[in-house]
């Protein structure tokens, strides 16, 4: 790899000091630990809380601490709140990461082609990107979800389709500026193919800002999903933090904690990703330190 890559500041060579910078960052580590806990929760949910968390298991509206078997009580349909919170992490993380992957694929494809090749193709793709960017994301997601039956796949797809322009713009800007750099000129003069220049020369150098953005995109996707299921547009067969808040809302006057707990889980999940994103930003783009 090192002998064939002309670009010296590629992330490959510098990864170790950057990982070290990330590990030295207390906020980044806090976020990473939180995120790992969330993942463990999602993975072990069927083991510690077997059965459908949407099933009635006890008397409805047990208050937190009233019954040791259900530490955070039960909701108005007698569902265990703790089981719901733990199982909810599965949906949030699943949708968050798959929606991000979908936007990453579309956005990288559009941004790379537009930025690297330029010309009329660039004009066309920029127009299309602008079009998708003009549509208000959340309203667009609502329309996309309304097209079919709400399911995890459809929701991930909708959020992914509505949010790829961020990645596309970023990738286009990186490719446009790196296309003119000396190491790409050198690679061209050596007769490297476009594919080789794109994947081996430019992509590694274009990645850092994109990696930072992906963590923010997962966070945004989790927030979008929670808003969707809060409005009752989520997957009705899966428990999600948003739908727990939507159901708890009916009991807001008497059982406010049914709304408070799932909200706290959303905050923790999104916060962990934002902390990781901030630390990645500091580690990968030292020049941009502190820029949101």
């Amino acid at each position, binding site marked *: 790899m090192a002998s064939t890559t002309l670009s010296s500041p590629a992330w490959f060579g510098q990864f170790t000091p950057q990982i070290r910078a990330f590990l030295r960052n207390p906020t980044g580590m806090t976020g990473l630990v939180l995120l790992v806990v969330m993942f463990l929760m999602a993975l072990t949910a069927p083991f510690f809380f077997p059965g459908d968390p949407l099933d009635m298991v006890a008397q409805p509206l047990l208050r937190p601490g009233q019954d040791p078997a259900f530490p955070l009580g039960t909701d108005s349909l007698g569902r265990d709140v703790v089981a719901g919170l733990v199982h909810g992490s599965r949906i949030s993380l699943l949708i968050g990461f798959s929606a991000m992957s979908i936007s990453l694929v579309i956005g990288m494809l559009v941004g790379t082609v537009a930025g690297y090749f330029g010309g009329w193709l660039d004009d066309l793709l920029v*127009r*299309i990107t*602008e*079009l998708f*960017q*003009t*549509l*208000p*994301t*959340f*309203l*667009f*997601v*609502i*329309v*996309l979800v*309304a*097209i*079919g039956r709400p399911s995890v796949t459809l929701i991930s797809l909708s959020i992914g389709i509505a949010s790829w322009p961020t990645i596309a713009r970023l990738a286009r800007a990186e490719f446009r500026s790196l296309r003119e750099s000396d190491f790409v000129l050198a690679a061209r003069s050596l007769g490297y193919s476009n594919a080789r220049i794109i994947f081996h020369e430019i992509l590694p150098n274009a990645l850092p800002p994109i990696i930072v953005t992906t963590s923010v995109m997962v*966070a945004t996707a989790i*927030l979008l999903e*929670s*808003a969707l299921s*809060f*409005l009752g*547009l989520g997957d009705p067969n899966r428990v999600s933090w*948003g739908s727990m*808040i939507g159901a708890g*809302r009916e009991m*807001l*006057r008497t059982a*406010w904690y049914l*709304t*408070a707990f799932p*909200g706290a889980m*959303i*905050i923790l999940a*999104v*916060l962990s990703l*934002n*902390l990781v994103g*901030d630390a990645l930003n500091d580690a990968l783009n030292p020049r941009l330190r*502190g*820029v*949101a």
Partner: protein
Amino acid sequence: MTTFSRIRATLWRTAIQAIPTVFGIVILVFLLLQMAPGDAVDVLAGESGGISEDGLAMLRTRFGLDQPVLVQLLIYLNNLAHFSLGYSPRYNAPVMELIMTRLPGTLILMLLSQLIAISAGIVLGAIMAAWEGKWPDRLLSLVALLLYSTPAFWIGLMALVVFSVWFGWLPSGGNITIGADLHGWDYVKDFAAHAVLPVVALAGFFVAIYARLVRASMLEISRLDFVRTAHAKGLTPFIVTVRHILRCALAPLITVAGMHFGTMLGGAAVVETVFSWPGLGRLALEAVMARDYAVLLGILLLSSLTVIVANMLVDILHAWLDPRIKANN
């Protein structure tokens, strides 16, 4: 170029660019909604209990739902050229009329939130930048990060619990007291009491974005030469911060505020639901439930137009503030 001609050129350029975008959005969303199962007539039939097959067919003919897709699209575009967004089978009213009764509610909610978010963002960002690395900066950064991670609807619900249910200070929903028939100052006070919680809930997320941005740009600007000159000529740190640094930090703030207009529109949709605030977001949700795609398409189109107008305002503001920006770049 004079300020006026710069602004006029900017306006002209953005208006020309907006036309293909609007066309693209209409065609894209129109075709997407054709993929949706069922139509408004199905829902009407389900609700009324029994309509004969003939009755259903008659309704579809009346609303043009029996035509081929391409014909429907052309009819829609023709309507659009006459500033009509079609007719809603569900509400039995023109879509434009429906949206126009709801749009002001959403816009005023967004305008107030934007004002609060920008002023709070500037103040908090300036404080964070002035005490960089010290405890006020650390504390406020943490608060900003928390706000940045919290769904607006959850802030709204928790604020409802505290200020409406526990303390009983503020009403829990709507935008005016129904049947109170208030005028003048009383009306303003009543409206303000209803607006406080939704506005604050919607503003929270954006306060965090703006504060972080103002902090970052102020720190960047404070290292530039002209700031050193200002200090050297004996200006007080406060004057330098407000007149020199903050002023330059406002340009990126305007850009970012414009960029997040669409995000705020989406946030408003959810906050409206929490507070039963009569606005576009709730209309959109009702339209989804009723499979009233004409209304849905109209809302998406009109809200995209407001995004375009917001971006136009940002461009104009920049052209006005900064003479270096040429209208045709």
